[in-house]
């Protein structure tokens, strides 16, 4: 008797956009369940990239576009940026939406330091990239947020369109999945604890 074809059939190519298409590995169905074949790192990156909660952080007009992307029309929850957190300790990604002035720079650094690892940074708009319109002869503006904290993805625009920010968010997800964010390619620091102890002795 012919069975109607279904998506759960493991011999068929899974439909694009389905869970199986995005999942980094293979599922072999066996009686009573399934066996997942994959690298653990790939699964972790896949899981992390699909649940990135941004920090509520906006210092100027880019913040309005950021709010638009959070709103119903563009809605970054569709891609796993579920909800903006007001506490850096609950956030995974900081979107620098706006101008960073000299007085704000230590605050930005502190917020970044307070975020739990793994953490990612998006520089949104001309001000966060280079100082933007305040590039020439200003007494107060930091000429690019990457002078303060490391940046993973840059979005051009003044301010960028909501679509551009969505594209940046998805680019960040792809970067995490391929293991290429600054967080992931960091060279581990040599352990200095023992040396310090020896120096004290």
């Amino acid at each position, binding site marked *: 008797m012919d069975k109607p074809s279904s998506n759960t059939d493991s011999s068929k190519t899974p439909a694009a956009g389905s869970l199986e298409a995005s999942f980094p590995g293979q599922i072999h169905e066996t009686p009573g369940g399934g066996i997942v074949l994959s690298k653990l790192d790939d699964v972790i990156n896949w899981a992390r990239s699909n649940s990135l909660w941004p920090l509520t952080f906006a210092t100027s007009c880019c913040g309005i576009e950021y709010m638009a992307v959070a709103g119903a029309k563009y809605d970054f929850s569709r891609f796993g940026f579920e909800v903006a957190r007001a506490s850096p300790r609950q956030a995974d990604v900081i979107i620098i939406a706006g101008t960073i002035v000299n007085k704000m720079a230590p605050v930005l650094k502190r917020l970044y330091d307070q975020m739990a690892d793994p953490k990612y940074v998006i520089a949104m708009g001309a001000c966060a990239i280079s100082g933007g319109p305040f590039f020439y*002869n200003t007494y*107060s503006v930091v000429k690019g947020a990457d002078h303060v904290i490391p940046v993973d993805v840059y979005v051009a625009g003044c301010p960028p369109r909501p679509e551009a920010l969505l594209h940046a968010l998805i680019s960040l997800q792809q970067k995490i999945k391929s293991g290429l964010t600054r967080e992931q390619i960091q060279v581990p620091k040599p352990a200095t604890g023992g040396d310090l102890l020896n120096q004290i002795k």
Partner: protein
Amino acid sequence: MTIEELKISITELLPAATYEEGGEWLTINIEPTDWLPFANQLRTNESLYFDYLFCLTCIDWKTHLTMVYHLSSTKFRHNIVVKSKLDKINPVIETVCNIWRTADFHEREVYEMFGVNFKNHPDLRLLILPDGWEGKNPLLKDFEDPVNMIKL
């Protein structure tokens, strides 16, 4: 009061005042030495009653500075603008923070941004800029940022 009525009563107070044409509000040009007694009269005169200083700023014209005061009356709902030309090298004008309390912080800001000295100000020191900025006034046209200046 209308602009014309304001013009008549202000000419009575200060015959030396000149007026600028155009603009939404009556614009009065005065000498900086006339400012303090004139400001007192604007505040206390019963028919003018300018009890609200809603903007105090300065303009750098390269050859000179201009102090700009926007005054309003909450009782009569009329507004005026008072302008006064200051020397570029040594800009000095009397403080009005005893007449309008809000002028205290505004004058401190103009002091740090333009270097205008407000005579008899009770607490003339930097407001927003960090310590050590005295003498470098970032909103003057000839200011160059000592740290991050990029020559184009």
